[in-house]
């Protein structure tokens, strides 16, 4: 479960990115986080992944209090999350299999567990035949599916996807979003940050709209509010 209570975030340069946000995302939910550029979406992702600490307020993620988390606990908190980025962030010098292996190694998985889990996850994202390919040998859609596989491989409680379709064509975007919905149906909480209105409307999930650091709408069904500018 994710809970933000009266969270404010002011960066060192004085920019106030978040102004008193309170929201709760229950286990097993699928949520779109939408809003124009500079609205504070990226800051929320940074707060959720522990990259920055809130200036004011409390954040709880999967049982960890991010507001006063110790340095030692941050890796443990991050293991409950699977993060997907717009630019995939795969290690180009490692094969698809190795990109997933090192993530499992990082949490102390045994070679036996790794050998069992990676083929399963690759099959789930439809890349079972690409295990020995390098990221540069794959299309954008395939690379993003590797990123999803990497986010999934440690069986996290929550997947956070930051503009996951930003570099994909509409058809691949739809495919990828369907894959995330499938993953959500298997029990994982999914938070997708996006500015693609059509995609948001199509899935009829909960949509939280952020603007100027405030939550301006939180409803189920589709985007409500002004034009979204990526």
């Amino acid at each position, binding site marked *: 479960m994710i809970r933000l209570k009266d969270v404010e975030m002011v960066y060192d340069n004085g920019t106030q990115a978040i102004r008193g946000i309170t929201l709760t995302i229950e286990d097993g939910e699928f949520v779109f986080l939408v809003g124009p550029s500079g609205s504070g979406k990226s800051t929320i992702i940074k707060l959720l*992944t*522990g990259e920055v600490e809130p200036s004011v307020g409390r954040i709880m993620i999967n049982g960890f209090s991010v507001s006063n988390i110790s*340095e030692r606990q*941050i*890796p*443990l*908190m*991050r*293991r409950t*999350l699977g*993060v997907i980025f717009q630019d995939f*962030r795969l*290690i180009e*010098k490692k094969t698809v299999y190795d990109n997933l292996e*090192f*993530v499992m*190694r*990082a*949490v*102390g998985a*045994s*070679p036996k567990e790794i050998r069992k889990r990676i083929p399963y996850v690759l099959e789930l994202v439809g890349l079972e035949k690409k295990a020995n390919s390098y990221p540069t040998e794959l299309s954008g859609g395939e690379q993003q599916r590797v990123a999803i596989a*990497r986010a999934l491989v*440690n069986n996290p409680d929550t997947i956070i996807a930051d503009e996951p379709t930003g570099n994909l064509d509409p058809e691949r975007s739809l495919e990828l979003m369907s894959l995330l919905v499938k993953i959500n149906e298997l029990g994982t909480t999914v938070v997708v940050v996006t500015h693609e209105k059509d995609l948001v409307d199509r899935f009829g999930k909960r949509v939280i709209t952020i603007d100027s650091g405030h939550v301006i709408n939180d409803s189920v069904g589709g985007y409500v509010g002004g034009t979204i500018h990526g």
Partner: protein
Amino acid sequence: MAKHDFRYFFREGLSNMFSHGFMTFAAIGITVACLLIMGTFTLVAVNANGLLEDLEQENEVLAYVDDSYTDQQAKALQKTLEAIPNVASATYISKEEATANFAAEYPEEAMLQDLDPEIFQDRYAIKVNDLTRLSQTTARIASTEGITDINAYEEIAGGFVTVRNVATVVCVALIAILFVVSVFIISNTIKLTTFDRREEIAIMRMVGATNGFIRWPFVYEGLMLGFLGAVIAFLLQWGLYEAVAQGVDTNDTLQLIQVIPFTQLWAPVAATFVGAGVLIGVGGSLSAIRKFLQV
């Protein structure tokens, strides 16, 4: 940490070395260069020290025995002299032996070949352990009953002591400076390789890798770089040393210099190179990745 983790870290470290070929080459090259410079300097210093030690040992004190002593009485003084602190050895030279030695020193002087031994005194050639305490030792020798006079080259001995002290200080200072410079250069080279991989480190942190997990492959990589650099530097040092030793041996004007054979030096040189290489490699890696590990 499980055994399979160490195998994984080792494999990762090795694969990192190969996948960042140029940086690996640069780091090993610099390690080799630094170790070679330090090694060469140290070996020159060791040889110079050995040479000075030899020269010091040549320096002996002559203690002349009272003419009224019989041969037996003169020989009996040996134990007394050797009991004096700092005396390494006392060799008895009878007046007949002294006469023969003297004649042998001037083989072309006919008039010196047939001297009467009675003009010489029985004597002891005394060697000391520590030249810095020569004056106290000569004073003790001179006050020994049965010794009438002594001949000690204290100024020469003082000169040797000064040269050794200055040489030691200069060597230690230069080696220390070279070591610090080496660590700095290697740490910066490894920093460049790490900078190249900051994205990789950021991904590792994002997926929940602990700092220890991120650090280990770099530590192994630094260890392997340092070890490889040390082995190459050792082999080059060996070749260089043998070449110089051969050059000195075959050079007529350098006949006085006795180069210590490498067979006597290889073990400490190898141990020092491997130790320094590994220390520089691991230290450089750790210092290089430190700033990337801050949450």
